């Protein structure tokens, strides 16, 4: 059902929802940017609707709601260990369609790719989603080409009308009464979806792993600074690493935690004996790209990348992932012609 709510009424509903859920939304952190006098938009806890940033894209995605950046798996001391208590509250995540498509990728890896991940599952079960309507694409978005621009698996959608009232399409049966009671009008609401993007991306239909031999990757040896921002901002990157540590004040107690990892950052492919499978930045770029638009699809039957374009937004070296994908066609021709000679 669709509803129109004033800002105050919307805040009233959010307040009720916050009794059982942490409201997690793209939010402006004033002065939180890396450079003096710049803000940062990233996910954080909100209390009212106007804290949700609707007119800009967040630098980091929602995924830290489901995959904490640092997550303690257990504490240990002598012969005993203890798991951290599960979060008391569920999370209500406000996200755009591309990100909602990314949730499927996270679920694929943590719930359906072999054993279920216990820690992921206990958060995921208590997570619900509010879709942020997306009337126009940002410059770097290419969700339409990645078929991630439309969604219907949300609990409710939210966006503002021209008078700064909130339009809601509630699909969660248990929350309909909340909105109904607060609404100033009941009407049909269809959330806005992007239909065209300024950035276009075409993945070659006959892409194969042979493209790894193309010369294009070498360019990134010099251009890329292996900072990992593309991975950390990506809503579909799921890699983590393990850290066992002993507390400095009491070496008999400690914890094991898992922490986000990046295939672009040093250490990711280090192995015992001092080896490193992908020492060059271009090799890492190649691995990441083909994982996003080739390997994943081979295994799961659909593309991993959702076209949110954050990797392009955050790259300090102005490397465009969209451009890399668009170069694959030519790289493929190059590799094929080399093979023919």
């Amino acid at each position: 059902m669709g509803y129109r709510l004033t800002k105050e009424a919307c805040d009233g509903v959010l307040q009720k929802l916050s009794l059982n859920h942490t409201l997690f939304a793209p939010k402006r952190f004033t002065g939180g940017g890396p450079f003096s006098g710049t803000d940062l938009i990233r996910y954080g806890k909100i209390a009212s609707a106007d804290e949700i940033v609707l007119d800009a894209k967040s630098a980091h995605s929602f995924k830290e709601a489901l995959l904490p950046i640092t997550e303690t798996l257990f504490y240990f001391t002598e012969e005993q260990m203890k798991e951290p208590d599960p979060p008391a509250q569920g999370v209500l995540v406000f996200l755009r369609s591309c990100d909602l498509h990314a949730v499927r990728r996270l679920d694929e890896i943590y719930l359906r790719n072999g054993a279920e991940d216990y820690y992921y599952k206990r958060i995921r079960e208590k997570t619900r989603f509010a879709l942020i309507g997306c009337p126009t694409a940002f410059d770097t978005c290419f969700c339409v080409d990645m078929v991630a621009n439309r969604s219907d698996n949300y609990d409710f959608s939210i966006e503002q009308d021209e008078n700064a009232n909130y339009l809601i399409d509630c699909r969660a049966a248990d929350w309909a009464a909340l909105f109904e009671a607060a609404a100033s009008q009941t009407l049909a609401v269809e959330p806005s979806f992007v239909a065209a993007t300024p950035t276009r991306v075409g993945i070659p239909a006959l892409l194969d792993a042979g493209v790894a031999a193309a010369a294009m990757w070498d360019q990134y040896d010099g251009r890329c600074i292996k900072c990992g921002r593309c991975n950390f901002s990506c809503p579909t990157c799921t890699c983590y690493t393990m850290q066992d540590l002993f507390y400095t004040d009491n070496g008999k107690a400690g914890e094991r935690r898992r922490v986000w990892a990046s295939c672009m950052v040093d250490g990711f492919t280090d192995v015992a004996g001092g080896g490193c499978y992908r020492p060059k930045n271009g090799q890492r770029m190649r691995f990441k790209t083909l994982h996003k638009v080739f390997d994943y699809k081979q295994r799961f039957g659909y593309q991993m990348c959702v076209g949110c374009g954050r990797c392009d937004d955050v790259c300090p070296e102005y490397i465009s992932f969209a451009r890399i994908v668009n170069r694959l066609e030519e790289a493929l021709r190059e590799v094929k012609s080399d093979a023919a000679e």
Partner: protein
Amino acid sequence: MDINTKEVIKNAFRVTKARGLTASRIRVPGGHLKAEYLEIIHQIAREYGNGTVHLTARQGFEVPGIRFEDMPLVKELLQPVIAGMGINQTEPGQGYPAAGTRNITACIGNRVCPYACYDTTAFAQRLEKAVFPNNLHFKIALTGCPNDCTKVRMHDFGIIGMTLPQFEPERCVTCRACIHNCRKKSVGALSEINYRPARNEEKCIGCGECIVSCPMAAWTRSREKYYRLTLFGRTGRRNPRLGVDFIKWIDEDSIIKIILNTYDYVEKYIDLNAPGGKEHIGYIVDRTGFAEYQKWALRDVRLPAIAEVTQPVYWGGLKY
């Protein structure tokens, strides 16, 4: 020709080597100006000067080849430039009321540079408002970060931007970019304890390298802006020397207060027989001792709790 050279100089016109010709010196606090003023400077150079303009060592302009007789016309043309840059004037249309306290220089600052820790131009303009006009020979320079592109240690007051890094451990992914960059590009104030960076507070110079290099926004800037204040660097003939640290983690208001206090100190102790009434502050401090200077400088100054005052202060440099 009858020219009062003392008044001309005070009015920011130069006595040049070419008899009858002067040069107009134009202040640009912070070295940043609206491009429209360039058109006026262009006009002055074309109509009254020799068609050239010098970019001064202190980020101002100097228009040479002007006849002394044309000074009133030049001042009239300069009026919108002077007023537009917010320069304090005693009488509009009469040019600059002083030239002793020099143009306040600054790097481009956080309006453009990713490393700058503050708006150097805005702070320079605020200082200009506080200290100008004044006939005493003071040189103030601001730089956005410890890279010190402005070379502030060559000035009486050097203001170096700092930020106090804030760390959110839960956002750290142990990529080690901060530790690596601090070691390679800064002072090596970060070490790793249990997979996370630990900041050596004594060593840290507040350059913000950790913040700029962090891909996770685990490191962020402090809301408060801090500075390092260096004192009495100078070029010149007798004892050129670099300015030395006075206060680390000082705030903007305290810097302004210290500079204003220094004017009072110089008024009190300047050599009354100094040629042209001009004596570098550092030589005065050499004479009174630093302790006396410090007493005057810190009068009514309320430093932030984090501020570190260097005591005692010594200078090196060359002595001829």
